[in-house]
């Protein structure tokens, strides 16, 4: 047991853990912003082809993760048609996680935004509030719980993601190796107990983060709870 634990806290494992948590956190923050923006455009804007765009948002849910990884290799791999080669880099981890987590915040914010009455916003505008102030003071507080529940799902997914990451970012220790890839490697090397110890560490940390996001949503004190998806 001691040996398993020291494998799970070895410098390689800790480096993978750090990369996993940092990229998941960054991706989650970007999702909170872009997801809310996309949801807003889908609900409050109207333009031709909007239903197609709405369907496209679900693509990462429908597409197998290995295919997501392959599409990123096609665009950002060694034969990139746009001249951007992200193979074996940390940026590749980041891009892959952005791809697979895109729908979570959009799908949790969208129904809440749709149900939100525009009367309050109109009142704010008629009282002289600018659109930025209206968004910040009226719309955003109503959306915060659903944004948080979307980001929690996105974070959980990002921390555990394997298939989409492994093709482009590969398995370079101390560089582009994320925790799920490290755990997979330990299983392949015939040390399932070291893999289990690393899994426990990863699960404990992501559980702590999820609980604090949930706590944050509760401290927000807002009764509205957005439905997922």
């Amino acid at each position, binding site marked *: 047991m001691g040996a398993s634990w020291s494998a799970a806290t070895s410098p390689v494992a800790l480096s993978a853990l750090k990369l996993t948590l940092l990229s998941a956190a960054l991706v989650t923050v970007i999702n909170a912003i872009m997801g809310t923006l996309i949801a807003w455009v889908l609900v409050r804007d109207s333009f031709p082809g909007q239903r197609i765009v*709405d369907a496209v948002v679900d693509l990462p849910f429908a597409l197998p993760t290995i295919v997501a990884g392959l599409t990123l290799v096609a665009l950002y791999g060694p034969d990139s048609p746009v001249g951007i080669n992200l193979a074996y880099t940390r940026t590749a981890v980041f891009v892959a996680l952005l791809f697979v987590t895109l729908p979570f915040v959009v799908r949790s914010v969208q129904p809440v935004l749709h149900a939100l009455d525009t009367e309050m916003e109109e009142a704010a505008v008629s009282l002289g509030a600018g659109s930025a102030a209206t968004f910040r003071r009226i719309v955003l507080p109503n959306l915060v719980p659903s944004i948080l529940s979307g980001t929690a799902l996105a974070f959980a997914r990002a921390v555990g993601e394997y298939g989409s990451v492994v093709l482009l970012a590969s398995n370079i220790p101390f560089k582009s190796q994320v925790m799920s890839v490290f755990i997979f490697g330990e299983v392949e090397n015939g040390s399932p107990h070291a893999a289990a110890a690393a899994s426990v560490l990863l699960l404990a940390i992501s559980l702590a983060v999820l609980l604090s996001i949930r706590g944050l949503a509760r401290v927000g004190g807002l009764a509205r709870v957005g439905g997922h998806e």
Partner: protein
Amino acid sequence: MTVTHPARIGLRVIALGYLSLLLVLPVGLVFEKTFAQGLSAVWASLTTPAAISAFWLTVEIAAIAVVANTVFGVVCALALVRGRARGRWLLDVLIEVPFVISPVIVGLSLILVYGTTGWFGKWLIGHGITVIFSPPGMILATVFVSLPFVVREVAPVLREIGTEQEQAAATLGASRLQTFARVTLPSIRWGLAYGVVLTTARALGEFGAVLIVSGNISGKTQTLPLLVETRFYNFDNAGAYTAGALLAAISICVLLVMTATAPDKRRL
């Protein structure tokens, strides 16, 4: 509406640009790379014995997982929403577990339980049953990762429709089964359909969990997603793109069904 015209156009451009760069362009490129080889090469690559076997194994595993999770999902949603049993909150939390755990950890935990050195390993060997590195383990992994979808889609609908109609049916002398078949099932059918579609998408495409428990033996325990990976690492990029494009085409069909079954979902 409270946003000025230029700001609205700006937001629209950002949203569409982001989606195009991140999703549409890469997926389109896979199809481009596939068909650049010419149709006969694509056909040849899709009809190798390994590819055909992978295709059917993928379909069989997904079919079993979808049926299992549909039955389980409906029963579980009924227990959660209509049941009176204590500890339902625990079930509610457990249902979410597959969403929170990495597929790699799912596969690993199956090995720790059903592998040769696992908890049930000795018993299984004694009875001549292999789970890990064979289809039963792959089915277990797929069922595990796609478990929450039906429950999560059906439970809110059950909550929303309430029990009035079911009670009316019961007072008119309908049996429990009749009430379920004639009253409950028709009301939850769209939620159920959406859940089944999501389950299908996940079951057809699961990679990490299945890879760990499969052993990835070509012609035996290799599904389509595993074939994509194997071809990629064997420097058969064209073959990987072809198998990937087939999976992408299947998931785009799934996406179309998803959009058709959930038109009012996002509008709450």
